[in-house]
């Protein structure tokens, strides 16, 4: 299956802004994080199609995953 991975703030340093990934069926968010060398505890906000999930969330074909380190404002 194909998913879109979007990185934000410091996660972009040395990586990318947006990329498509090919993953085996049944993959979890974890399998996106590992090859990027991002530890789950570094992720403050993980959105899959806009919904807040954790690294154990199972992905589906066509999902968009947005990853943020701790950031915020107002």
């Amino acid at each position, binding site marked *: 299956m194909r998913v879109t991975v*979007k990185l*934000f*703030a*410091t996660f*972009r340093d040395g990586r990318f*802004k947006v990329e498509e990934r090919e993953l085996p069926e049944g993959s979890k968010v974890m399998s996106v994080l590992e090859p990027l060398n991002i530890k789950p505890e570094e992720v*403050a*906000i993980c*959105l899959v*199609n*806009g*919904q*807040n999930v954790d690294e154990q969330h199972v992905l589906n074909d066509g999902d*968009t995953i*947005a990853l*943020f*380190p*701790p*950031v*915020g*404002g*107002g």
Partner: protein
Amino acid sequence: MGGYTGKVLRVNLTEGKTSTEPLNMELARKYLSGRGLAGKMFADEVAADVDALSPENKLFIATGALTGTNAPTSGRYVVVTKSPLNGVIASSNSGGQWGAHLKFAGYDMVILEGKADRPVYISIQDDVVEIKDAAHVWGKDVYATTETLKQEFGDDKAKVLSIGPAGENLSLISAVMNDLYRAAGRSGVGAVMGSKNVKAILVRGTGKVENANADVMKNVLSSALGKLRENGVTGQGLPTYGTAVLVNIINETGIYPVNNFQESYDSQADLISGETMTANHLIKKDPCYRCPIACGRYSKWEGGEGAGPEYETVWVFGSNSGIHDFDAIHKANDWCNRLGLDTISVGATIAAGMELVQRGYIKPEELDGTPLEFGNAAGMVEWVRKIGYAEGLGAKMALGSYRLAESYGAPELSMTVKKLEIPAYDPRGVQGQGLQFATSNRGGCHVRGYMISPEVLGLPEKLDRTSLEGKATWVKIFQDLTAVIDSLGLCLFSSFALGLSDYAALVNAVTGENYSDEELLACGERIWNNERLHNLRVGYSAAEDTLPKRLLNDPIVDGPSKGQTLKLAELLPQYYAERGWDGAGVPKPELLTKLGM
């Protein structure tokens, strides 16, 4: 006693006299200072039916109990008055340096009463307070006024608070500015100052604010600073990117209003994100007094440089107006600073104007050749200028989006609560924030209980933004806690890392009081109910605890939150019950007795 100076400065503009009086410490214990105490004094001293722009209204400019101390983020002051925009209690706070320096001069609060017979400014140099002629700066912008008054005073350490031409022109979306770029922006407080013929207040203080328990303070301070440093948001996110880092977060969550809230996702948002701004525009950080977070930005753009812009400003002049041009956003922001305008309300009014044009309400001949359409950046910037100087249709827009849209028979196109423009979050996708918008005591406002923190950012814990469960309780606690933080004179952003116990420890060390966590939060609840009672007295009711039709009836049309709606009808009764109010949103007598009101 530490923290408070114990002294209030009253300026009777009608008679041209100034006087001082002791701060009412009994009230300060119950309402803290700043927003709380000024709000209580305002409610006691100003009759509910006065016209906000008449001499009978008063303008309270108040510091918090911790303003000017060594507590982190303690540079804030608040402007409390009757809002000319909507008649409810206005309490707009601002950072920078001015508030701390008012304390150094020896005052907790300045109260402006009556009306001067000609333009004046107030000069405060410790005990020497003078009402001076301001004819030479009347009509000048905020930058020129600040520079001129400082130069004449002859001491660069003086701090200047002033209005711009917008406040002089009684624009209902005008701000009180300080230290050039910092704004007590919301609710039209600049117009109240303008209506009194007061252009500015210059302050030069040479005193110091004492801590009652200096030894205890050392430990409390080091703990608070440690938490601010280690917290990802206050230690890294905000310092690195500023508040505009929210552009991508809020957009990816699908609650990022586009084109006057017609859509809720912007595929081009990254062009104007905090990440892009940091890479291409940031010159340096521009922190407020004693702030280790330093979210403030100082940036460059084509042909200029200056402070900001903040997230709300980027959104409102950007995506909400269909614009992705950072230079234009910077220019619009700079005009607002110069002219003394609230960026949120100005941008939202322009966006409402764009929709009025889109739907054929505003006719091309009314525009005097300046384009007013989504995506037209140059036109947008020019409309900001026209609003500040009340030129052409800009004069109507200077009264805010509600009056503008209403004048064309389409008030539903104004994205406001209680006539105040709603900030950058689509409430349909964040239930708690939606309830907060509907019930905020000053109208459409995000900083009276920032539910985005738990519902989107996951702080202090993650809540499901689509669920109603527990939201009424969270909103009440957040509103009460925010009232405490505001009244202490601290920045709301400190609360990403600090909690109620930290604030209690700080206020106890500084003032020598001995508040328990519960007692301190009860001060916040008292402050909230005092504001609510005032609003009920001026004629507001539960009917106004609502949102514009679009946000209440229609689902989100696009993006990750497509289909979501706000369930306000379910949330509101829960909230009233949580607050101890009756079904009509009126505080019950037993609640007021419990709070000692």
